[in-house]
């Protein structure tokens, strides 16, 4: 660069940029630098072009910037803002290469007054619901320990449902998911959500209900702040999870639901127990079942052995029929048999009265006891205490 500076002083040669190279390079730098951002300012000179695009300046006390809004976004914004309107605009800075102009490309435009109104409405509804106790901690129901059927109120077209199904398949693959389609944004969203929530109460055997949608702009979540939706959610007869897909903003349904989840995926994580946990629980119960029976050996070992044989025979028949599917179970059952337990080298001590000795304190110094092992029993005696 130092070299080109010198040569530029002497005479422009190979290092000359074309104007379009300059604007293209500037555009690349400017547009690569910024994430979409909200800017607040005052609109001046909004012009609607025949193409439907809007052009206006946004200014504050010191600066102004040229803004452009394409037809599709402009249509969503409604009427062009009058001079002096205070607005929030969402967009990204860019360079209009043809004119070499710095401009702000706007995708959303919201008059600040509208935000104020929305905020006031939100506060009004919030106060009402609070008065009626809908946010009370005492109202909150715990989620079921082991749900079997989940109702989901959301848009069947949205990413929220996909995320919920993905998590469900991983955590609780034998689940049943009932989806009640609803509009989650735009006109009629609140009415649609209310209707869907009421429908949940007409479904039999639902264990838990998720109300949700994916992340969106703050304005698009307005239905989840509607009084009617909040009240309908409070009336759902099973525990509810609100997942409106926004880490930072809290919707009123989040406050009314029994549990709030940051995202629909997180809601599904909360709704379902991990099936591997239940498998572990079953393993534990199987072990305790075997242990419980082993504790009864004093009452008739032979009877137990016969029962175990019968069980094994029964299981053997089942295995014959469904060997592949029940392979795991077979191993489990095998381990359950008290006889097998003894064959693995365990021994069951019992006192003179035949009671099984389970704790240190039951072994009295010098007392005789019997050790039952796989092929019979051995008489034993506790060592007397050292003198």
């Amino acid at each position, binding site marked *: 660069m130092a070299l080109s500076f010198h040569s530029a002083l002497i005479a422009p040669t190979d290092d000359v940029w074309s104007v379009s190279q300059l604007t293209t390079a500037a555009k690349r730098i400017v547009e690569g630098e910024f994430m979409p951002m909200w800017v607040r300012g005052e609109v001046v000179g909004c012009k609607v072009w025949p193409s439907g695009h809007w052009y206006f300046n946004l200014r504050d006390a010191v600066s102004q910037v040229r803004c452009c809004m394409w037809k599709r976004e402009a249509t969503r914004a409604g009427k062009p803002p009058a001079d002096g309107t205070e607005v929030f605009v969402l967009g990204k800075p860019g360079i209009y290469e043809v004119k070499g102009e710095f401009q702000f490309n706007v995708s959303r435009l919201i008059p600040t007054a509208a935000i104020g109104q929305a905020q006031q409405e939100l506060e009004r509804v919030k106060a009402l619901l609070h008065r009626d106790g809908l946010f009370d901690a005492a109202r909150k129901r715990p989620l079921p320990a082991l749900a079997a059927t989940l109702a989901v109120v959301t848009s069947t077209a949205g990413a929220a449902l996909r995320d919920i199904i993905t998590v469900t398949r991983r955590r609780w693959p*034998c689940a049943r998911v009932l989806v009640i389609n609803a509009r989650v944004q735009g006109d009629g969203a609140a009415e649609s959500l209310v209707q869907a929530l009421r429908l949940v109460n007409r479904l039999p055997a639902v264990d838990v209900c998720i109300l949700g949608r994916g992340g969106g702009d703050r304005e698009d979540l307005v239905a989840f702040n509607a009084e009617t939706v909040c009240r309908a959610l409070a009336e759902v007869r099973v525990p509810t999870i609100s997942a409106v897909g926004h880490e930072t903003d809290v919707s009123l349904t989040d406050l009314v639901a029994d549990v709030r989840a940051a995202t629909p995926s997180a809601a599904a994580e909360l709704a379902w127990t991990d099936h591997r946990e239940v498998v572990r629980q079953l393993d534990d119960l199987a072990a305790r079942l075997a242990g419980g029976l082993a504790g009864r050996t004093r009452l008739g070992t032979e009877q137990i052995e016969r029962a175990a044989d019968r069980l094994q025979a029964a299981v053997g028949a089942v295995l014959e029929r469904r060997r592949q599917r029940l392979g795991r179970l077979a191993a489990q059952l095998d381990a359950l048999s008290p006889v097998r337990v003894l064959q693995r080298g365990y021994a069951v001590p019992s006192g003179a009265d035949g009671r099984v000795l389970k704790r240190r304190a039951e072994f009295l110094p010098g007392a005789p006891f019997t050790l039952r092992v796989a092929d019979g029993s051995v008489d034993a005696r506790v060592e007397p205490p050292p003198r």
Partner: protein
Amino acid sequence: MTTIADELTRLEEIVRQLEADDVELDAALALFEEGVARLRAARERLAAADLKVQTVLEEADGELRLQDLDG
């Protein structure tokens, strides 16, 4: 229809009874056999892994209808 939650609750009960000191052998064996059957049922249910996703549709006459949804 019994759910896995129901099976687990009953299994807990069986194991607790079996672990108590005052169960007669006959009762213990019956409990053990029931426990094994319930364990098997619960494991089979878990292993089946047939996730079912359905949409709930309300007919014009107010009747509810379930329709399978391709998850």
